[in-house]
Structure formats: C-alpha cells, structure tokens
C-alpha cells in the first residue's frame, strides 16, 4: 500500500501546481491507499499526518511530492523510520525547485507534477528495504598540511584523545602564517601567537609529526583509509639533529631563502627559520656541493651529533586512518608572467606583499628594518597595488582573495610605524573590510596613519631616475595619477597551493574552477569534502583570513571527532550488489570500479562471481552499466526502478504526441 503526500509548501508549490488535482490523480493510481495534499509536509504536523497514515492505512511505501530530495529526503526518511517503516521505502517527487518555481502556466505545471507523481508511484513499488551498514573505523586522523589550519585541526582532534598524524612537505610546520609580521586588525605579532601552537603540535602525545613528507597515494574509504606517505631524503637524521645550526653556519653553498620569500639567501643545509618546528636541519641536494660533483663533506665533519647521512633514502610509510583533513593552504599568486606592465620582476623594488612581510619582520632578512632590495635604502614613498591576480578575469583569477584589502591596510599602517615620515599610497578596487573591527582598522589606516587610498587599477610601473613611477587611474576623481615611489608592494591574490589538485585527485575530491577544493555543500557542509571521511580546513577550500581559517579548521576537527569517536561508521546502503545467479564472472565491474569495491569470489560449484565490498562501494553505479548480464545492480537506482520511471513518466496522456520507435 502506497501513501502519496503532496506538499503545498505554503504557496510555494500550490501557487502554480494544483496540489488537490495531483492528489486526486494519485488516488487513482495502482496501490495508492491514501493521497493527501498537506500545507507543509516537512512541518511537525505534516510529518505527523504521514506517520499516522503509515500506521492507520498500513502503508509500506510512501511518495512525497515536495521540494528537492536534496533538501528533505533525509528528513522524510527519518519520519518513515519513526513510523516503523524502512527509511528507503520513500520516493520523493521534486515539484518545487524543478516544477512550481520554474513554470508559470498552472495547467502545464500541474500536468508535469502529475507525470512525476505517476513515475514516483511506479518506482516506489520496486523499492526494497535497505539497511545501513556499520563498519569499524580506524581511530586515527591524518592532517595534511602544517599551516595554521592543520595545526588547529590537529590540536583539536588530539585534544579529544584521537591520535593524529600530521604530514607537512616542507621542513617546518607553520605555513604562511609563520612568515607574517603582524596580523590585522589587532596588530599582534603573528609568530608570537603561532609559535606556542607549533611547539604544542611537536610535543603533543597524540600527534605524530612528519615533516619533509608528502601523501603519495590514498586507498580505502571513510573509516579505513590506507595512505602511503613519502618521506623525502634530507640527509639529516631527525632523531640525532639538535638544531645547533653549526652545519648551516659553516656550509659553503648558498641557496635561496624560501622562508624569506626569496629575499636574502640561505644555505644548502639549513634550518628553515629560527622558530622552525621541528628544529632540524635539512639539506637541499640541488644546491649542495657534494651532490654537484664536489668533494665537500663539511657538514658531516662538523656535526657534533653525527646526524648527517648523505646516503639517506626516501621512504614510504603506509598508515591507516579513519579520517583525513586536507589543510594545504594557499600560495601567493605568481604575478610575474601575467602583468608585463609591472615589469615582470625586472625591477627589484617591486616586491610582493609576502616579501614585504619579511621586510617588516624582525626575523626577516633586514632585521625588521624596511630596506628596499635594490640598494638597501629606506623608502619614503611606498605604493601598494591591490588585487594583483585577484578579481581579475584577464589573468584567470576572478575570485577575491578576501585578505588583500586588510593586509594592505595593515602593511600601510606598519610602514608609517616603521618610518614615521613615510607616505603610503594604496591603489584599490573596492575596500573590503567585512570582519569584526576590520572597517575600523581600515579607516584608522587613513585617518591616523595618513595612508592615501586611490580607487583604481595601476596601469604601468616603470623606473625613472632611481625611482619607480606608478601610473594609474583614480576612478573617483576621473584622473590619471602618477606617483614616484621608492618601493612598490603588490598585493598578490591567493591561489590554491601547488599540488592541491593532484592531492585532490588522490583523495577523490573535486576542485572548483579556481583550483580550491570543493566542499560538499557551500552552506550546510562547508568542511566536508564530497568524499566521505575527507574534510577540508582553511584556505585549501577557498581564501580565508586567520580567524576564519582557525574557525574552519576547528569545525573540520569537530567533524572528525564526531566521526571517529564512536569507533564505527554507518554507511549508506545505496551501494551495488551482485545477483550471483546472474553473474557471468567477466569482472567488467571490477575493471570500471573507481574504488576497488569489487572482489573476485567463487561459488561452491567453483563458478567465479563478482562480489561487492559494501563498505568500499560508494554507489556511483558505473558497474551497473558495465555489467552485460545485469547481475550487478545499484541499490536504490536499479535498472528496474529507472525503467519504471521512464515507462511511467512517458505514458501517453492527453495532448502528447509520441515518436514512433521501431
């Protein structure tokens, strides 16, 4: 017996669809014992009506015509369950998003709703009760990335007593935040607030920290991921190195200073930065003399701990995890190739905002004194250019970096604080200061710190008599502006960090068109990736400032804790299943399965058949199509159910013409 309930959704549906008429049509459909039009099916009284009918009319199947199943399918499944029915004996008809809201002709919309109702009634007849499967989950989480997002997530998860492995590809955790001088809008010192957290990660009994490591491959599924972690060779024994820095001091080979964003230089063997965690040296072979044909073994000779091992090899560790947090952060937009009129990097005194952070920082290459890179002079006129590689369709970066306005304001303020007689100019497009105390801070940058804000894009930067001329338009005044600057700072936008796309593929999750990893729902599931058991923390999901990152990472941690706290997972039963008597044993299903969810089995008579590992199957149904005898079938989306839908929705009715087919 089928119950049919159509929702008026106030007037959202009933304004266009004659719900009474659809209900009357449904009442005449085979097996429909009750057909009712309800004002709000999702409301308590609405659900009560359904539950009452289930009990009173002994319904075994329910069709609800209402909003999108993506909205309320879960709600109504629970309602069925509470009324004693298997939750999967439900079929929803989407007559709001896909009918009443997109049609204005009431008779057309009503006819369409009736067609859809007929198809749902035919389909629900083929539904079978499905039971959610429970599988044991590994009680350990993997956090990929050791920036502030990863640190926060790891600490929160570890605090709940769940072991965490943190994988960081660079020699130290800390990420981009460790390079910042001060943070807006409070101007507190970035590394002062970050360093204690970094140390806590290192010392936490529930956290295993693997630096110089990357995720090589990911197998398995929510609750039971198998992850290969590649530990790169650094020629330094982490156990032995004490971080004394003798090797770095004595190393004769210069190397770029990554931490200082390319300003200044470092050594082939070095410690990433003074506050690095772990405080361990690492050797970059590409810059080392020994690895470039020279006989130098200086570091090995001088190391008091005997930690240098030139023959150290890469290793791959395999670990099991129940959940994975991606916290891979962002990279600053590489502007040089795309902005030829800004000099393409030929002018040393055009620096990026991150380089400027290092110039401002007491731990930076200039010891916290602002000096321009070309001649070390203290600049007087500093021009900031906003939105470089941000909100710029012409370079393929339509997105807002969401932090540029604020950090530029902060850097302008810090410029005046460092050099009181300096003048900062900011070319901006719009001032975006949406956070708490942000607008006040941005305003102070103008009023108290005398920063001049010019609304407009910079057209050109070129050198003239030892200065840089910045030409732009002041769109408010409608004038061309020309400023002679000593130093130009480009506020570069944020890209997903290099390799994020590749990692996403390994994790089987999607990236948006800007390369950021996609959350499952933009509002309701902002930290869940579309792959079960994978969560997103921080800027890998989209540009964020520090408070938003910390909040996002905390949320991801909460989801991981929620998932792993119980030790077992409930998985959707809408997975593939094999009817063994129909299986021809060709294993085409196994060949197409993206998740390795099909295994070979043998029947007692020796016949080989396919078998689905229910907890690995994710329910895509690719196998269903690949199976020639139709032995493998996706629960909830069987051929039978889909054919029933096709046949019924197309049943010739008044006013339809049909294509005659063979």
């Amino acid at each position, binding site marked *: 017996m089928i119950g049919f309930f159509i929702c008026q959704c106030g007037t959202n549906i009933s304004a266009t669809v004659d719900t009474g008429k659809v209900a009357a049509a449904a*009442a005449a*459909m085979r097996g429909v014992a009750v057909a009712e039009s309800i004002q709000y099916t999702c409301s308590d009284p609405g659900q009560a009506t359904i539950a009452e009918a289930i009990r009173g009319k002994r319904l075994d199947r329910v069709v609800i015509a209402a909003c999108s199943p993506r909205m309320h399918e879960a709600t109504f499944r629970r309602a069925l369950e509470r009324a004693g029915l298997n939750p999967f004996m439900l079929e929803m008809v989407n007559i709001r998003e896909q009918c009443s809201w997109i049609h204005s002709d009431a008779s057309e919309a009503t006819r369409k709703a009736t067609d859809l109702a007929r198809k749902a009634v*035919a389909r629900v007849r083929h539904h079978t009760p499905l039971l959610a499967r429970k599988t044991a989950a590994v009680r350990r989480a993997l956090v990929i990335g050791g920036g502030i997002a990863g640190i926060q997530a790891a600490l929160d998860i570890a605090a709940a007593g769940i072991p965490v492995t943190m994988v960081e590809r660079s020699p130290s955790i800390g990420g981009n935040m460790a390079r910042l001088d001060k943070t807006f809008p409070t101007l507190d010192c970035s590394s002062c607030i970050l360093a204690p957290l970094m140390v806590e990660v290192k010392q936490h009994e529930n956290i295993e920290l693997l630096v110089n490591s990357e995720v090589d491959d990911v197998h398995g599924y929510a609750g039971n991921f198998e992850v290969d972690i590649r530990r790169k060779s650094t020629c330094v024994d982490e156990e032995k190195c004490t971080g004394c820095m003798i090797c770095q001091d004595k190393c004769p080979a210069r190397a770029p200073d990554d931490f200082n964003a390319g300003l200044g230089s470092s050594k082939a063997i070095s410690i990433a930065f003074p506050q690095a965690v772990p405080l361990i040296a690492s050797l970059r072979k590409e810059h080392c003399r020994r690895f470039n044909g020279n006989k130098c073994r200086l570091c090995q000779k001088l190391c008091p701990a005997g930690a240098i091992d030139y023959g150290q090899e890469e290793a791959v560790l395999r670990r099991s995890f129940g959940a994975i947090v991606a916290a891979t952060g962002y990279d600053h937009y590489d502007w040089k190739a795309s902005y030829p009129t800004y000099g393409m990097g030929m002018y040393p005194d055009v620096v990026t905002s991150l380089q400027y952070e290092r110039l401002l920082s007491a731990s930076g290459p200039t010891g916290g004194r602002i000096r321009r890179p070309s001649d070390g002079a203290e600049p007087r006129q500093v021009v900031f250019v906003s939105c470089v590689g941000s909100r710029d369709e012409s370079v393929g970066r339509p997105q807002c970096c969401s932090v540029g306005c604020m950090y530029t304001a902060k850097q302008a303020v810090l410029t005046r604080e460092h050099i009181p007689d300096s003048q900062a100019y900011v070319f901006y497009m719009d001032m975006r200061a949406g956070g708490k105390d942000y607008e006040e801070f941005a305003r102070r940058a103008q009023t108290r710190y005398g920063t001049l804000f010019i609304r407009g894009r910079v057209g050109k930067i070129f050198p003239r008599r030892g200065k840089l001329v910045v030409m732009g338009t002041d769109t408010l005044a409608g004038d061309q502006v020309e400023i002679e600057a000593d130093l130009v700072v480009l506020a570069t936008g944020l890209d997903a960090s290099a390799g994020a796309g590749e990692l996403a593929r390994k994790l089987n999750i999607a990236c948006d068109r800007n390369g950021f990893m996609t959350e499952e729902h933009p509002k309701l599931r902002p930290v869940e990736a579309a792959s079960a058991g994978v969560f997103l923390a921080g800027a890998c999901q989209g540009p964020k400032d520090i408070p938003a990152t910390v909040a996002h990472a905390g949320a991801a941690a909460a989801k991981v804790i929620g998932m792993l706290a119980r030790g077992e997972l409930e998985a959707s039963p809408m997975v593939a299943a094999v009817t063994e*008597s129909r299986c021809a044993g060709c294993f085409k299903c196994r060949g197409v399965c993206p998740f390795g969810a099909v295994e070979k089995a043998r029947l007692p008579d020796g016949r080989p058949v396919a078998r689905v590992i229910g907890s690995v199957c994710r329910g895509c149904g690719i196998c269903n199509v690949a199976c020639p005898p139709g032995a493998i079938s996706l629960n909830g989306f069987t051929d039978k159910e889909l054919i029933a839908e096709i046949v019924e929705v197309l049943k010739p009715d008044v006013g339809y013409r049909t294509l005659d087919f063979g």
Partner: protein
Amino acid sequence: MRFLREENIPLLLHRLSESATVWAPQVVRDTVNTVLFSPWLEGAEVETGLYSMLSAKELVLPATERLFSYRYSQAGGREKIEINADAPQEQAAIFAARACDAKGLAVMDALFLDRSGASYNDGQYRARRSGLTVITLACTTCDSACFCSSFEKGAAETAGSDIILYPATGGYLAEAVSKRGEELAALDLFRDSSLEKPELARTAKVELAGLGQRLFDIYDDLDFWRRTAEGCLSCGYCSYACPACHCFNIFDEAESDRTGGRFRCWDACMFYAYTQESSGNNPRPEPAHRYRNRLAHKFSYYPLNRGEILCTGCGRCIRGCPAGLDLRDAIRAVRAR
C-alpha cells in the same frame, strides 16, 4: 483428379485472399535467400524452389500471442481489473506448404486438439486451426537435408493437408484430402484431368526403428552426450524451425503500471533458461543435457507416450543450424553407441 494451370496460381491466391490471409513462401526482401512463409500480397512472387527457414506452425502456434489484456483501475479506494481475452478470429490459408509442414500440423493437432475431450483442447489453437486452409505442394525433388523418406509415407504424406498439389507439366494436379480441400478443388480455376501423379522425391533415410528404446538405454551416458552435442551452440533455431516442436512459455507482462497482458511465446528446450528453477537449480545446466532432451523427447518419450514421433523429416534443423550440426549424425551415433 483436378488440374490447376500454372498461370491460375495467382488467381487462386487472389481468390483465397478475398476471405483469408494467404501465407506463401517468399524470399524476404534485403536478404540473399531467406525464404519464409509470409502474408502474400497481390503480385508478390511465390518461391517454390527453396525451402522456407521456418515451418508453417506459426499459423497455429504463433511465436507470440496475447492470451488476454488487463487494465487496472482504482476509484474511491476500490480496485478494478478488466480482462479482455483476445480470441483469434482470423481465417488463413497457407499455400505451398510441404508435406512435412502439414504433417507437423497433424502432429500438433493430436496434442492441442484432443477431440475426445479426455486430454487437452486448446482454445487459441483450435480457433486458429479451424480457420486454416492448408494447400500443400508435393515434393518431386529434395535436397540432402531432407529425410522424410525415413518415415512411413515419406513425401506422399497427406496428414494435415486440405489439398495437395502435385507438379505436372504446365501446372499442378490437385488432390483434395479434406472437405475443405474438396470445396477448393471444385473451384472453376481447376479442371478435370486424367494425368498420373508424378513420382515423388525419395530422400535420404535414417533408421528410426528401436531408436526410442536405444535413447533410454544410453540416457545416462553423459560423456556420449557431451561428445554428440559438443558443437551445439544452444540456440533455439532448431526448435523454432521445427514443424513438430511446440513448447511454449506463458507469462504475464506489465506494459505500464496499470496495463499489461498474458502472453504465450515459443520456448525451446535448448535454452538454459528453459529449465532454470527459481531456487537457482537447473537440471539441464549443459548444452549436452539439453541436446539429449531434445533428441529423446522427439524420438523417445513422446512416441512412447503418445505414439507419434515429433519429427517430420523436413531437414530445417540441418539446413539452418548455425553450427552445422546434423540431427541424423546424432541419431546414427545413438544407434552406433
């Protein structure tokens, strides 16, 4: 005897088609030499040189027939199912059937139309059969697949026919076998003749005596059957082409959520699905089991139970077998075993 001149054949077909659908062997368009019995339309060429790929049985036992249709409706909580049984009304005539085809009809008549009423009497079959006129073309030639001479009357078999046409110079001698045949022969298209019946074809023979018991004796020798059937692809052509095979399957099929019907369709014991049980068990899992059944049913159980061999020697299963199997080889092998 009566005589029908060659040029009067179209006139006869025309006359017949005024009150019945006339079926005649014709080469199917777009094919190289596929001959089938198909409804004859004015002016169409009748192919009497080549044998048709299928027998005439579809006129009495169609490949598919709807036994009834149903329509479901529901109003005010009351369910209603209307059943509409479609009894065949059709009048049909078959022209240029062969003696082996006609005999096939006679064999099936005995099964489907037990006139004594003691056994089964099939309404659908009866309706079709009683509306059918069988005009048989006697064989004066044959090919190497024919083996009707293995049976008592050979090409001279008259069972199942209403009228038999014997090839003669300039036309056909006509011999009425039934009352309906007599009515036909009385038509003005025929004239009296004193010609002698021509000598009929003598086909290859296969010895059938004692075969029924022999098949019983070696029934359990599965290795033998595996060897005998090893080339068999297990398709249903031989059964479907056979004038005497009559297995069918009845099933209900929904055409929509509210309408559908009950169908009777040909089925063949060469199919795995034929004996598939819902438990999953299949008593005839291998082609060998199925091949054995087909042979034994034709030449052993059926004759032992009903006194009639389920074979008329038409040779279709030999001519058309995609695997090139020859039923007679199997019979010889059984005898030699």
